[in-house]
């Protein structure tokens, strides 16, 4: 165990998921999932399609209520809270299916997170000129300043920009825990190369990140730890290279050993 892990294990976890389960009708989407997440970690959640990854995100962010179990964020039991309350205490997320506020120009899309009570509280109870701040965030995720895409209706943006816009919306909340649901899917190598440093920067700033991913190669390069889900249960939890060696993980992914 290296020094970093030692330090993290001493402190209280920022997020603790205890034995949560959720089923839809007869389908058990998430079954008794447990994990702790420490501040500053980048956790990857992987698993085959339908293994309950997005359900897990929805449970943590309050879009779904768990049938049983407990979710503790910074010592507060946030189980059963409404999504907006969870967002206010500092958990931000992106959506897998990206639906921007289509009619608004890109930078105006960021007005919505910037108008959030959380941001207002963080900036001392004042909103100020949100347009300028919005453009700063867009620049941070790779929209060229004062370029045409900044002013274009978000509905007409290409996929790569939509993903970045989604990320910018998440950043604008200045949350401590950021959950990215399949952010990398559908991005080109070049686009990935510009987005990965943004996430690395987040982690270096001390933010905690959970990434749901299918693009394992890119994920393994930046993740501190990986949780593998299959049929709603955790089948492996550990550092990336080690996890992929395990036989049950290979079985889930490849169908054989």
């Amino acid at each position, binding site marked *: 165990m290296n020094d970093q892990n030692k330090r993290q294990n001493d402190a209280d976890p920022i997020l603790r998921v205890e034995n949560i389960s959720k089923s839809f009708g007869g389908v058990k989407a998430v079954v008794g999932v447990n994990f702790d997440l420490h501040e500053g970690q980048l956790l990857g959640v992987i698993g085959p399609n339908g293994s309950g990854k997005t359900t897990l995100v929805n449970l943590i962010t309050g879009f779904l209520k768990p049938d049983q179990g407990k979710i503790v964020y910074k010592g507060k039991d946030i189980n059963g809270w409404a999504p907006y309350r969870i967002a206010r205490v500092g958990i931000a997320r992106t959506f897998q299916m990206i639906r921007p506020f289509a009619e*608004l120009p890109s930078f105006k899309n960021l007005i*919505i997170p910037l108008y959030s009570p959380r941001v207002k509280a963080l900036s001392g109870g004042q909103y100020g000129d949100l347009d300028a701040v919005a453009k700063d965030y867009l620049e941070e995720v790779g929209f060229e300043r004062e370029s045409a895409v900044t002013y274009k209706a978000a509905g007409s943006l290409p996929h790569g920009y939509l993903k970045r816009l989604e990320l910018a919306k998440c950043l604008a909340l200045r949350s401590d825990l950021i959950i990215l649901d399949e952010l990398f899917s559908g991005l080109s190598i070049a686009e990935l190369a510009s987005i990965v440093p943004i996430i690395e920067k987040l982690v270096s700033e001390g933010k905690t990140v959970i990434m749901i991913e299918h693009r394992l190669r890119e994920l393994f390069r930046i993740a501190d730890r990986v949780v593998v889900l299959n049929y709603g249960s955790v089948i492996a939890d550990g550092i990336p290279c080690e996890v992929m060696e395990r036989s049950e993980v290979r079985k889930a992914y490849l169908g054989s050993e």
Partner: protein
Amino acid sequence: MKQKRKERIDRGIKARSDDVFSLNSFREMLYVAVPPLAPVLLLVILPLVLPSYWQKVLISTCVFALLAMSWDFLVGVGMVSLGQALFFGVGSYIAGVSNKILGVPIWIDLPIATVLGGLICTVLLTPVLRLRGVYFSMVTLVLPLMLERIIEAAGIFGGTEGITGIKTFANPFVESYVIVLVTLFALFAFRRLVTTDYGLVLKAIKDNDRAVMSVGINIYWMKAQALFITGCVGSFCGAFLTHVYGFVGMPSFALDYSILPLSAAVVGGMGTFAGSFIGAFILVPLSEALRGIGGLRIVLYSFFLVVFIVALPEGIFHYIQRKYQQFERWVEVDK
């Protein structure tokens, strides 16, 4: 293969007047100033020149314009109401009851009915704020009809007879100018409101309510605020007409007050408020003008409605706006 395609180009004067600093001729100033000034001038002059019958028509036109604008506003937040009559009726009855039974004078009565009506409607609709789309619409459609039956069955507030002998306005000019000023105020206030940050958040709820929730905004609270704003406008209309006719009764919950604003907004062009305004100023006088021809009136009226909607699905306002801002020409393109 050669094919014709319509090309649209912004007029030079539009491009120049987008930036306020580049106004450098009287013509450019007029280009910017005429569209907002036209409705103001029209509404300020009309009460002075119209005969008394048409002054009443102007009043009900303004009322329908207000209802249409408030409907449009609610649609912009993702709530398609089929029951503007609810807001209208609640306002009417509050004004009627407080004036006749409690003896509250008109000028105190109107603001009270406006705010209280907005509050009551918001509270009535709070349980269904979570409903989306057609489910919300159905509840709003049923609520005014339900209130109407409650009044009939319980015999409260004058029952089927209604309440008569409510104070009317001192003279027709006061009457006209009150509604004209409120209509103009609402038109510009609504147009301004939707461009503010607050308005953008409301609009975003329509586009993607989950995304709005996920940034920490309580969308049900925002929706309740939007309902309150709409409710206030609707209740004001009801309270005002109660004082114009000196009467309030079950017809205040009639379907007309739900459907006509909706068609005015659709014919005029949704999402602009100016469209609702134009729509009401076409449909209501049209309906009055057709009164002379008797039984065929509704047929002709409906026919006009269909023609408008088929020929200009985008709405009259959007059409005019496009013509005002852009050249259109047919160009040949390769296909």
